[in-house]
Each structure stands twice: as structure tokens, then as C-alpha cells.
């Protein structure tokens, strides 16, 4: 917690963490009263990650939450009533009862993309969001979250690799809560720090204590600034622990007692309260004021949600297709001259420039790239170019096509003999 924040920032982080937890506590009550239609997924103990990361985004930035990122939604401006109504399948909810949980979004105002249950799919989607923002000159950053479990999906890798090749202004928060349903992280991934994945894509990464909200915020702010400045995507691994089961139905008896005890003693809100007290930012009176404010807010939000009707049955038949302008006026918001991306200014020479190899379309040109397996003329060209380099060696280091073929034959001969 080295970088100093303003008093307002410190208090915002505290307020949203408390609000995050209070919203989820309210939903547990609703769940026990059978008012929640489907499952309920908790982020208990992970509030510091949702709040600290989302707080680093600007209003114009885009985010796509995961199921446990209620805190991120609240920071971005979603009302608690919307979260309640989503879970209760109410007609006034953002999806009007068509989907539940945090599966909703807002393209127009809050710039939130809805998640789906298939993990990892948001990574290429948010890469595309960030690329479109760059293309339109909006200078936005896109952020999404993934769990330790979701980091094993194919689309996680496809998406992150593509984002890296595009240098997309994209920040991925890898929330390592140590458990994918009942499977511990050690049985999912053979590396200690999931942030190490970043090395394979040539992108920057951070590891941060997910239960230290100020550290999470400071790290994310730095990452968001770097991504916005054009440094490419950044991966942040926030280490924490999932204190509830996968969902309400799951007592999580597979979690070792000592592990639970360790993390319960490191509750992110209690840790932060200690910090705020030491820094003289929070006293008993201040704490009580915040609690009363949240209590009053949630009482009215809950009342609104409970009074909202269920959607009428026939509503199920509507809205599969966008019917055109009267349904959605789809117009990009340009913040750069369109002339830059339209002919004649958009004209380019359609060749790859490959570092160290000049440029050329075929392999016959004087500046053509040298490939493994090139022989004769190309090998000579390589030899002469190597002579120019200070540590130039003879051409024998470049395998000829014949040699390569021989070695392949030898290798396959060997494999035939093996049992």
C-alpha cells in the first residue's frame, strides 16, 4: 500500500466493498426466502478484487464482469435493485427476466458487456471492444475478469494471444480464488503463479494480493494507464480465496479447514478497516454512518425489486432479432477523422515488413526472408549476410534442405523401431 490515494478514493473503496458485501448478504436472505429463481454465487472474501480493479476504470471505459463481480458492477454504476431483480427474474430487471445473475449489460451508458456461462469467451470479445475503441479514436480501455478455472479454456489462450498480437488496450484480471468448483488450482494448472501465462504471449503481468484493496487498485491503475498508453494487454493475477461454495447449494466440504481459517483471518474488509483506522480515515462514527447509508439504500432497493412483477409469459416470444433502426440505431461514435481510415489516406503497401529481413512477397527477391529449409542461393545469401554480423559463423549452421530431410527420415526410422 505504498501509493497515497485521496481521502475520497480511500472512502470510495471502503464504501463499495461494504456495499458489495451488503448486497450479497441481502441476496442470501432473499435466497433463503425462495425469492431467487436460480443459483446464487457469492464473492465473499473477494470484494477487494472486484472493487479495486473496477475503480481504476474511467466512465468511458468498458468492462465485462464475471459471475462473482457484483462489486465491479456497483462501482461502474449499476443500481443494487438491478442486481436483485436479475436474480429474482423480475420484469424490471435489465434483461426483463430473460437471464439471471450478473448476466446483463449496458452498451449505451455504462459500457458493460454481459457475460455468458461459458468461461473465457469474454476475452476475445473484450479484445474486440478495445480494438474498436482504438479504431474509433476513443482512447478507452477494456477490462474483464477470469478465474483460475476459466484460465484453462482454449478461448482464454486464443483471446489473450490475439490481444497481444494486436497490442490491444485490454486488461485481464485473473482472479485466483484457489478453487474451480471443487478442484483446487494445483490440480488445474502446473504453475505457481498464473500470471506466468503472460510470458507466453509476450505481455506484461502483475501478481497482487487480492485481499489488499489498495494494492489491487494501485496495480490496476498502473496497468490501465499502460494499456491506454498503447503498451498492449496486461494480465493481473489477484490471489484470494473463495470462501463460499461454488454456489449456495455447495457446502464446500472439500476445502481444508486450515485453508479456510487462514483466509477468513485475512478478510479484505477487516484488513482495510484496520488500515483506515491506523491512517485515521475511519472511526466508529464514520463507520456507523456508512452502514446506515447502505442499510437505508438497500432497504428501498430491495422493496422496489420485490414489488416488480414477473414478466408476462408471451414476452418469451419477443426480441430474438433486432428489427432495424427503430429497434437499435447502430452508429459508431467517431473521435478521430474518418478520412484517416478511408481511401485515399488509408492506402498501404500490402506487404509484411519482417524485422531483420527487409521486405518482399516471394522468396526469390534479393531481400527475401530466409526460412528453415532454404537451400542453394538462399543459403549463400544467408552466409553472406552473416558475414556482416560481428559474430558471423559459416553457413554450416544453416541446415540444408537435404540435411533436414535426412534427419527427418532418420527420426521417423527410429520411431518405427520403438515399441
Amino acid at each position, binding site marked *: 500500500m505504498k501509493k497515497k490515494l485521496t481521502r475520497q478514493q480511500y472512502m470510495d473503496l471502503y464504501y463499495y466493498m461494504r456495499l458489495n458485501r451488503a448486497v450479497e448478504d441481502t441476496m442470501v436472505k432473499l435466497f433463503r426466502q425462495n425469492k431467487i429463481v436460480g443459483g446464487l454465487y457469492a464473492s465473499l472474501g473477494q470484494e477487494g478484487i472486484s472493487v479495486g480493479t473496477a475503480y481504476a476504470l474511467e466512465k468511458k471505459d*468498458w468492462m465485462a464482469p464475471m459471475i462473482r463481480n457484483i462489486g465491479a458492477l456497483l462501482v461502474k454504476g449499476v443500481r443494487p435493485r438491478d442486481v436483485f431483480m436479475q436474480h429474482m427474474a423480475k420484469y424490471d430487471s*435489465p*434483461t426483463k427476466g*430473460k*437471464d439471471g445473475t450478473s*448476466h*446483463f*449489460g449496458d*452498451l449505451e451508458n455504462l459500457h458493460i*458487456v*454481459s457475460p*455468458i456461462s*461459458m468461461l473465457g*469467451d*469474454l*476475452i*476475445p*470479445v*473484450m*479484445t*474486440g*471492444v*478495445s*480494438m*474498436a*475503441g482504438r*479504431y*474509433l479514436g*476513443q482512447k478507452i480501455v*477494456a477490462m474483464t475478469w477470469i478465474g483460475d478455472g476459466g484460465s484453462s479454456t*482454449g*478461448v482464454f489462450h*486464443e*483471446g489473450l*494471444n*490475439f490481444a497481444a*498480437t*494486436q497490442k490491444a488496450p485490454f486488461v485481464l484480471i485473473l482472479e485466483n480464488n484457489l478453487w474451480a468448483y471443487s478442484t483446487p488450482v494445483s490440480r488445474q494448472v502446473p504453475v505457481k503463479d498464473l500470471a506466468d501465462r503472460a510470458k507466453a504471449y509476450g505481455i506484461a503481468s502483475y501478481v497482487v494480493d487480492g485481499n489488499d484493496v489498495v494494492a489491487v487498485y494501485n496495480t490496476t491503475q498502473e496497468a490501465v494507464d499502460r494499456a491506454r498508453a498503447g503498451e498492449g494487454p496486461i494480465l493481473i493475477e489477484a490471489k484470494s480465496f473463495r470462501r463460499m461454495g461454488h454456489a449456495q447449494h455447495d457446502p464446500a466440504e472439500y476445502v481444508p479447514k486450515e485453508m479456510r481459517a487462514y483466509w477468513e483471518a485475512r478478510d479484505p474488509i477487516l484488513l482495510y478497516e484496520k488500515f483506515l483506522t491506523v491512517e485515521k480515515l475511519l472511526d466508529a462514527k464514520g463507520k456507523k454512518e456508512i452502514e446506515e447509508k447502505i442499510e437505508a439504500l438497500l432497504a428501498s432497493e430491495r422493496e422496489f425489486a420485490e414489488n416488480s412483477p414477473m414478466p408476462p409469459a408471451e414476452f418469451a416470444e419477443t*426480441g*430474438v*432479432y*433486432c*428489427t*432495424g433502426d427503430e*429497434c*437499435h440505431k*447502430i452508429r*459508431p*461514435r467517431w473521435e478521430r477523422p*474518418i478520412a484517416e*481510415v*478511408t*481511401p485515399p489516406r*488509408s*492506402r*498501404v*503497401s*500490402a*506487404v*509484411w515488413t519482417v524485422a531483420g529481413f527487409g521486405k518482399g512477397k516471394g522468396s526469390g527477391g534479393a531481400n527475401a526472408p530466409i526460412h528453415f529449409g532454404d537451400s542453394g542461393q538462399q543459403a549463400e545469401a544467408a552466409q553472406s549476410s552473416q558475414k556482416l554480423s560481428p559474430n558471423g559463423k559459416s553457413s554450416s549452421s544453416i541446415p540444408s534442405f537435404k540435411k533436414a530431410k535426412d534427419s527427418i527420415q532418420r527420426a521417423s526410422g527410429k520411431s518405427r523401431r520403438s515399441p
Partner: protein
Amino acid sequence: MSTPHGNGRSGSEATQITFLEAIRQAMFEEMQRDPAVILIGEDVGVYGGAFKTSEGLLEKFGWERVIDTPISESAIIGAACGMSYLGLRPIAEMQFIDFIMCAFNQITNFVAKGHYLWNAPAPIVIRGPSGGGVHGGPFHSANPEMYFVHTPGLKVIYPSTPYDAKGLLKSAIRDNNPVLFFEHKFLYRRMKGEVPPEDYTVPIGKAVVRREGRHLTILSYAAMMHSSMEAAEALGAEGIEAEVIDLRTLLPLDEETILQSVKKTNRCLVVHEDTKTGGIAGEIAAILCEKAFGYLDGPVTRVTALDTPVPYAPTLEDHFLPNTKKIFAAAKELAKY
């Protein structure tokens, strides 16, 4: 083909162009018209596409609008979807349509459901070369259209002529929904046709009567539409007048045109290159049973590919695929009722 670096059109009068050139012109003209249109896919830029459908686009529109990607179909579709949320209209190319299956989840769960669930339209076009008859083998010859016809939220187009290909691709790009656009690769360079010099579109969801007749209706699309036309000519020589309808769009299906024709001819033969079980012919048969049962003089008949993967050897593939002879024989049989 007009010059790859030209303006996409080669004159002021209607000209004969290939099916492939029609695709290229549609993309070129839409990118020229609207800077929100971009192209994303494998080898679409410097190389101009595996079939050269995007030749010249990178030169003209630049790196930001013609994006070469790694071999990551899910990333291509996902990124296209994300771009569309900011108002862009990406065209995502699958190098061969067979590879669309690698992005199946992204398309059917993410892209297709967005508008229904959370009011998020995704105006993207997913297009690529499909179909057999070119000995491409089991992974370069597929007709996977029905996986997507079964997915509410998508539109599915499968044209048979350069005119329709160009006009429908333009409609697809301008549509606010995710549209899958299948391009039968057998037609790419073999099929030529006239396109007018001016901007035009062909409406999505409208079939067209290619040949009028009164004895039976043949419904088809894509490459099989041409085989159906050949068969209809041969049937005509024997006094059987077949009405041939080109479906053009499979989702939404133009039920009105189908029902109108079958109520007139009282017999219906459906021809498609897709495999038989779960093909569109079964769906059409069900629609006819529901809405025109009293008009049918004979069974709704299917001529389709076999229920096997697409085999590689020419002898096997020829046996696998429907053809003019098979259509002719089935139609003759049906006409007896």
C-alpha cells in the same frame, strides 16, 4: 475478374463477373461506403484471402480495417462481436467454412443470444467458402448450415448466383443481426453472371422462382440449385414442367413462396448438398405437412448427400453428392403421383 487494385467495378453497364468477384465487390463497395465496415480473418490481408476474395482490400483500406489474425476462430468471432458493440460492422472470414465449428460456442452462445437476452445487437457477418464437389476431403467440403439454422438469433444465407451473392452480402453487412453467409466454393470461379453497375441489395429471407412449372416444385439452394435447373430442363423434354425455387436464405425461411408454389404444383422435391438427417428438407417437409397437407398429391421427397462425412476420392465423393441424374430420377418418380 476486374483488376484487383481497381475501384471494385469495371464499367458503367451490367457486366459478367464470377461469383468470387461478386463477393469481393460487395465487401469493397461496403467498406468504401461505410468506414464502420472492417474485415477480419486468417490471411485476408497481405495474401488477399485463401481464395482471393479480399484481394486488394488491404492496399485500399489499410491495416486497421483488414486484419490478419492468428489461427484462432473463436478469437476472430469474439473480437468481431466485441467490435460490433461499439457500432462497427465487422465481416469475419472463416478460411474454409468447416473451421466455423472451432468457433461454435462463440457464435451460438455468445453472438446469437445477445439481442434476445440483454438487448445487444451484434451486426456481424460470418462468411466463408463451403461445399463439396472439388475433392477437398472431409474437412474442406462441409455444409454446416443447419447447425446454425437451429440457432435462434442468427440469419443464414446461401446464395447461388453472383447477382444474389453481391446483393445479399451487402444486405448482410447492413443488417443489425449476426448473419452467416455461405459461399459455395464450387461456384467461385465456375459461375458467372451479370451484376448492375449501381448499388443494389437483395432482401434477406426471400426465395426466388428460377423456373416456372406446374407439375412439381423443386426447392434448392447454392450449387444444387444449378443441378436442379439442369434436371428441370431434362424433365421439360419429357413433358414434366418443374418449378424451381432458389431458397437463397435458410433462416428466416421464405415459407410464403414455398407454400404458394406447392399449393399450385401439389408435389415437392427438396434438393440439398447437406446430408439428409436434420437437413433443411426435413424442416420443409414438416412445414408442408402443417400448412399444405391437403394440397399434397405425393410424398415430400428428398435428394441430398448421404449421411456420411464428405469422402475424399472422386469416386466416393461423386457417389456421396446429389447430382442432376439423381434429381431427375426422383422428380420423375414424384411426378407419377
